[in-house]
């Protein structure tokens, strides 16, 4: 595998690729990941809130079967392997984006895969909140919506930021797989050059760049969460 990695020819090809294709691939990866994470959070956050607030002892109990349905739906999506999910959501992608393949279209399966994950992360974060604080708000005459919007979510911001960071790095990993359905980005470069054309040097370069991206996102997220947390001062 390694005997032809460092030949003159290979290095030249890799440098060329680094100059011409990789900058755009980085941009595509970042843009798809960030956009998909944002959308997943927009859908996942309210669902996570519903899972906690809608419980029997929650601030706004939902009918038991509605909650069961929601839980089942989330579990169902969470159990489909991403590779299969990408193909299963083709009809949805066509409906929403107009096409099932290409970079833009990969946002649909990424969001579908990530929002149930975000919902579960949010659920876990909200459950960590001291129930006495919710009780105190109730004793002041807070409505269920006020408890959600002014107590539960704001009090959990640091842990929510941590969770969103975890979701972001997971989606970054998934986005690399989307090369299969024609999605662009570092994942596509790694697969196309490394897997199909045996140009391992380019594959390694793409993987290293992915690692660096994860590091940057993770440390930025952790820093933001720590900065937002007023308990640590």
């Amino acid at each position, binding site marked *: 595998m390694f005997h032809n990695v460092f030949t003159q020819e290979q290095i030249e090809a890799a440098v060329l690729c680094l100059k011409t294709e990789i900058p755009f691939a980085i941009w595509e990866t970042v843009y798809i990941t960030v956009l998909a994470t944002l959308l997943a959070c927009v859908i996942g956050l309210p669902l996570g809130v519903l899972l906690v607030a809608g419980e029997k002892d929650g601030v706004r109990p939902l009918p038991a079967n509605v909650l069961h349905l929601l839980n089942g739906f989330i579990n169902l999506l969470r159990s489909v392997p991403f590779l299969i999910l990408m193909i299963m959501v083709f009809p949805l992608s066509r409906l929403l984006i107009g096409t099932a393949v290409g970079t833009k279209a990969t946002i649909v399966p990424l969001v579908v895969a990530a929002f149930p994950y975000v919902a579960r992360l949010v659920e876990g974060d909200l459950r960590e909140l*001291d129930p*006495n*604080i919710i*009780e*105190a*708000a*109730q*004793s*002041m*005459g*807070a*409505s269920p919506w*006020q408890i959600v919007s*002014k*107590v539960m979510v*704001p*009090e959990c*911001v*640091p842990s929510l930021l941590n969770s969103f960071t975890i979701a972001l790095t997971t989606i970054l990993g998934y986005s690399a797989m989307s090369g299969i359905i024609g999605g662009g980005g570092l994942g596509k470069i790694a697969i196309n050059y490394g897997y199909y054309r045996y140009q391992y040097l380019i594959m390694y370069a793409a993987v290293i760049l992915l690692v660096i991206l994860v590091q940057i996102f993770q440390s930025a997220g952790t820093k933001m969460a720590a900065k*937002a*947390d*007023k*308990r*640590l*001062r």
Partner: protein
Amino acid sequence: MIEIRNLSKTFISGGLAVDALHDVNIRIEKGSIFGIIGQSGAGKSTLVRCINMLERPTSGDVYVDGQNLGNLSAAGLRAARRQIAMIFQQFNLLMQRDCLGNVCFPMELAGLPKARAVKKAKELLALVDLPDKAEAYPAQLSGGQKQRVAIARALATDPKVLLCDEATSALDPGTTLQILRLIRDINETLGITVVVITHQMSVVEEICDSVAILDGGRVVEQGPASVVLASPRSDAGKRLVFPGFTDRRVSLSDRDRRLRIIFRESSATSLPLVATMAREKGIIATVLEANTRRLSGDVYGTTLIGLQEADLYEAAKFLTSFENVSVEEVTDDVS
């Protein structure tokens, strides 16, 4: 002001019914400081949560200011709760908001304009003696300071009632005293009715006008603090007022009897009763235990004496001839 009528609360846990409160009847006068005291598990916290319907009673009614809280709609109850503020053992401040934001919180819930809320919050922080902590976060404050912020927050909606759920149990004795004085000042200057839930005898002694003793979910005794605390009649009351239940530990010979002398007011506490009895009646008694306490500004004291069975009647007759002195025989088995 607050009337609790025939209130019972049963929890169902794991298919078992647990009676947390049983037929509780309490009347709390407007402007008073009412103590509800009992040991852990007596049902104090459940009772205080029934007053603002955080816990729905299984049966019975709660009237606050003539309004039956059990009959209110969800929105009506939320409005009523703004009149019934509450402070807690663990303070329950919003950790991600600064002190000013915490005090503004109930006004925000009530829909008060921001500028007015901020102005009032600053006044309240000054009232609780923390004018310079507006921008501090709860994590930066000591326990006593946190409870002060919680008190300021509780006062934000001009409540008529302040419920204190073990509000000083997490504080050291010195800080406890400061917080209790603050609560008493608030009671006196703003005329707010205060309900204090506690297991600490010292808290009741310090501020309560009236007291109810809760044991096993029942009110076993209630009345003016000076009466109940000077001569508790119930076992639970005795356990609380005479910690360690000294009566049981004192060992005397089988033929000796014990009397508890109870004094009220300073005129009685200054009498040399035991010596007088020895001189005038020739009755010799041993002092087994004695103490005096100050209670809402009044002094009261108890002395436990041991004497011979033959002298018992004569001694009781002599002692009760003094004003503000009463006696009771202590008959618990001597171990």
